[in-house]
Structure formats: C-alpha cells, structure tokens
C-alpha cells in the first residue's frame, strides 16, 4: 500500500474482496482473498480527506462517498470488481452514508438525513477505466 495513504473506511463486496478508501491519497484499494492489494486512482478532483465512506451497494459493488468535490458538493462513485467507475453527482454535501434495506442510500449531512432514489449511472459504459497505481 502507498505509504501514509491513511486507509479509513472499508467494505466487503460481492466478489469476496475488501475495498477501502485512502483518505490522504484520493485513491481506493482492493484487498483480494489472496491478500493482494491493488490501488486505483479516483476519477474526479475531490478535496483532501474527502473519501470518508465506502459501502457495499445493493448491486454488490463498492460505492464511495466523496464528501467534497470542486463544486463544494458530494459525489457517489460506484466501482466494479475490476476498478471501472461511475460517478454520480449528489445535490448537496454529505459526510456519511449507509445502505437501507431497500438498497437505496441513506446520506448524512450537517443538518439532515436524506434517502436516495435508485442510482442511475449517466452512461451504460463506465466513465473511468481502472488506473492502478
């Protein structure tokens, strides 16, 4: 793993691996069942200590909450098992996220709780191909 990456949040995904955010490096890492770590750069400019939360989504993939993008709002980033990513902008700025029983996301903001509708990627094709470190 990259030195001083500050692994912060972790989630098990459907393929049996563990995905984690690297708070200080704007990356995510994948720890597979054999103990190998692969790190991937995240696709957008997100501010320092922004990737505070990763969860397993209803689709079995890892979803990162990037708390603070260059517009001062938050983004969701869905990552499949090969590191391909979709970015979905959120209307607002959030610092916490969980997955509800219906598969939608529950988001924590400074003064509110929000429930998402099902997340639809902007394109069937992943926006970002894996760039392992």
């Amino acid at each position, binding site marked *: 793993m990259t030195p001083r990456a500050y692994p912060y949040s972790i989630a098990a995904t459907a393929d049996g691996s563990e995905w984690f955010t690297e708070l200080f490096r704007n990356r995510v890492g994948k720890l597979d069942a054999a103990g190998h770590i692969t790190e991937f750069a995240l696709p957008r400019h997100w501010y320092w*200590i922004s990737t*505070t*939360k990763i969860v397993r989504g209803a689709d079995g993939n890892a979803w990162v*909450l990037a*708390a603070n993008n260059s517009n001062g709002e938050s983004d*969701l980033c869905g990552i499949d098992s090969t590191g391909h990513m*979709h970015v*979905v*902008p*959120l*209307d*607002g700025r*959030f*610092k*916490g*996220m*969980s*997955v*509800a*029983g*219906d598969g939608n*996301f*529950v*988001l*924590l*903001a*400074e*003064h*509110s*709780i*929000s*429930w*998402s*509708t*099902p*997340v*639809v*990627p*902007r*394109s*069937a*094709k992943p926006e970002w191909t894996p760039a392992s470190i």
Partner: protein
Amino acid sequence: MVDTGGTSLRETRVDASVHLTAMTLAPDGSVWFGDASGTQLYHVDDGGTVTTVPLSGREQSNQAVFGYDVGSDHNIWLLTTGPMDGLIVRASTDGQQVTTFRLSFPLVSTWWRARMGTFG
C-alpha cells in the same frame, strides 16, 4: 448517450443549530443519528418524522460522539471520547436507561476530528 443519470434525494432536516456527526440504520429501516455532544438522539422513521430523545444524565456532555450503532439488544450504542478518556454509552431507545462504560485511554485525535465534524 443522453445524460439522464443521477439520483434524487428526499431530505429530513433537523434544527440548524444541531451539527450532526454520525448515524446508524435500525433493522426496521429507521435511522438513528446525532451530534457530537451525544446529549440527545434523533430518530427518523420511514415517513420522515423526526423524534428527539434526550439521554438521561448526559445533559452536560463534554465528549465527542463519532459513532452510533444499534445493538442486537435493541439499545443504541454511542462511541465517544473526551480529551482524557473514551466512553462507550448504552442508551435505551426512550433515553431513560443510560449506562456509561469508561475506557482507560483517550482517543485524542479522534476527539479533535469529531469536533471538526469529519466523521460520517
């Protein structure tokens, strides 16, 4: 490809003087959440109705709560730390039965980060 992606959000707000730090989902789909003080819990049901639950004996808290969880015992558990010691707090959902378990060590950097609101 038409750019139609995204999600829409249904929001439930608390008073602007409350700065939320963490939340947890209950098995019934409702959400428990709160601020750094941990003096009261907030509960929101599926319909978006918020209930405030004061925690007995925690009116003068100087800790920083950075984690909430729902136990299999149906209690709400708070992970909190002050500058000198860490605490785990167990609270009944009506806020009347509150028990504090003291850790023998502080979580100082955690305390500062919770004060800064960087937990989710």
